[in-house]
């Protein structure tokens, strides 16, 4: 009896503290804060404090939540919560150097689909608000997802092929074990284009510059979030931050596995360091040096250049180079 309770508590701890909510909340916000600071420094500004996302979050919690008369209340309020919960659950499946809170439950293709749920929640929430700006935002968000999906799939298939050989695999644990035994996959020559493609996918999936057409505040009034205010908006902002963490740690699990000590705390810190570096490289640098693209340019970019990179990787992996 005692052991059951302890096990339950342990898993509850996984969900709520590490690598669940608390970890996601703190690290995700931190990554976004660092991103804003780095971008500011690159533009020769002082920039907001690193804790700025926390301030934004708590401020929004204290604001009034207005439900527009045209909105469907339940969907409008529930969508942000569902999106956040789904994203945090997704984070639980991503292994941290061999440590995986819930191993054997979801493989990389499942992760691909689980990533759609927060986006879907945001889209339904936006659609439920009834705003015409949300309609345009939804359209653009969906096109961005379509754009990212193809190269992302190719990257995953290439990784599965390299790890599994003839017996291709989608399994996370096999990928992790392979990297423990053979070193990080990024050292694998055929996967370098895939890693670059993945780095370019991260800002698209999170909706960061220059792929933030869906939330363009200057042209379509924040798109999907146009009618959100107060706490639901805070949840959306948090979801965005967690998404940055999820995608960077997904990258780490795919390409930078095998770096670690075996002690969970140390590994977590290493993961945080890796995520910070990845955020700076793939989000901040790209943000600072580009202007926002038009939506058809986003689509074209992903389906030509990024897909091309991923395809090179896939073909190389296929022929075992």
């Amino acid at each position, binding site marked *: 009896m005692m052991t059951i309770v302890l096990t339950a508590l342990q898993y509850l701890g996984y969900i709520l503290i590490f690598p669940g909510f608390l970890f996601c909340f703190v690290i995700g916000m931190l990554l976004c804060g660092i991103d*804003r600071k780095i971008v*500011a420094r690159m*533009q*020769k*500004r*002082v*920039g*907001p*404090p690193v804790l*700025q996302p*926390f*301030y*934004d*979050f*708590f*401020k929004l*919690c*204290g*604001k*009034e*939540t*207005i439900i527009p008369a045209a909105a469907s209340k339940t969907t409008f309020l529930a969508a942000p919560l569902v999106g956040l919960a789904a994203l945090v659950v997704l984070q639980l499946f991503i292994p941290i150097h061999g440590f995986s809170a819930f191993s054997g439950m979801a493989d990389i293709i499942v992760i691909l689909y689980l990533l759609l749920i927060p986006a879907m929640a945001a889209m339904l929430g936006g659609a439920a608000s009834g705003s015409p*700006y949300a309609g345009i935002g939804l359209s653009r968000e969906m096109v961005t997802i379509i754009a990212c999906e193809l190269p992302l799939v190719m990257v995953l298939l290439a990784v599965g092929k390299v790890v599994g050989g003839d017996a291709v695999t989608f399994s996370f644990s096999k990928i992790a074990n392979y990297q423990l035994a053979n070193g990080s996959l990024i050292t694998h020559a055929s996967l370098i284009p895939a890693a670059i493609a993945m780095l370019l996918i991260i800002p698209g999936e999170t909706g960061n510059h220059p792929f933030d057409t869906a939330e*363009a*505040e*200057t*042209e*379509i*009034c*924040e798109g999907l*979030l*146009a*009618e*959100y*205010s*107060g706490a639901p*908006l805070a949840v959306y902002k948090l979801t965005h931050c967690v998404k940055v963490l999820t995608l960077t740690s997904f990258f780490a699990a795919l390409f930078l596995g095998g770096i670690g000590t075996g002690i969970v705390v140390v590994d977590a810190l290493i993961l945080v360091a890796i995520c910070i570096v990845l955020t700076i490289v793939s989000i901040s640098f790209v943000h600072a040096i580009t202007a926002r693209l038009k939506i058809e340019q986003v689509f074209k970019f992903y389906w030509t250049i990024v897909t091309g990179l991923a395809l090179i990787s896939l073909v190389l992996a296929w022929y075992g180079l």
Partner: protein
Amino acid sequence: MFKKLIEESTAKSPWLFHINAGSCNGCDIELVSVLTPRYDAERLGFKLTGTPRHADIVVVTGPVTSQSLPRVLRAISQVPEPRCIVTMGSCPQSGNVFRGSYSVAGPLSKYVHVDVDVAGCAPKPEAVIDGLALATQILKEKRAKK
């Protein structure tokens, strides 16, 4: 403790919504220059938003023409509480050179409660930042009173 946290955060993350009520664009340009590297209001947490639903501070420029008045009032009413209204430049405060024109309905304070007036034509960026900082304090007080 939580309440305190929200109060502190309210002062540290004021988001702006900018309404042009018939301005000559002088103030609009100055407002944008506040966000440029030289003055960098983002270090204080300021951020321009695209929709009144996200805003804390509404910045109104221009003499409030009779065409823009209902739009301005509607947009201001859509800002969630606590909110703070800042007029920028002389126009929304007095009408400036447009005063007395058949098409000017201002000043704005006839219609809504204005929290901060930043005078000048156009105001210097330092003055704008000062006014906005004042507005964040008012915002914090409003939040605390609630």
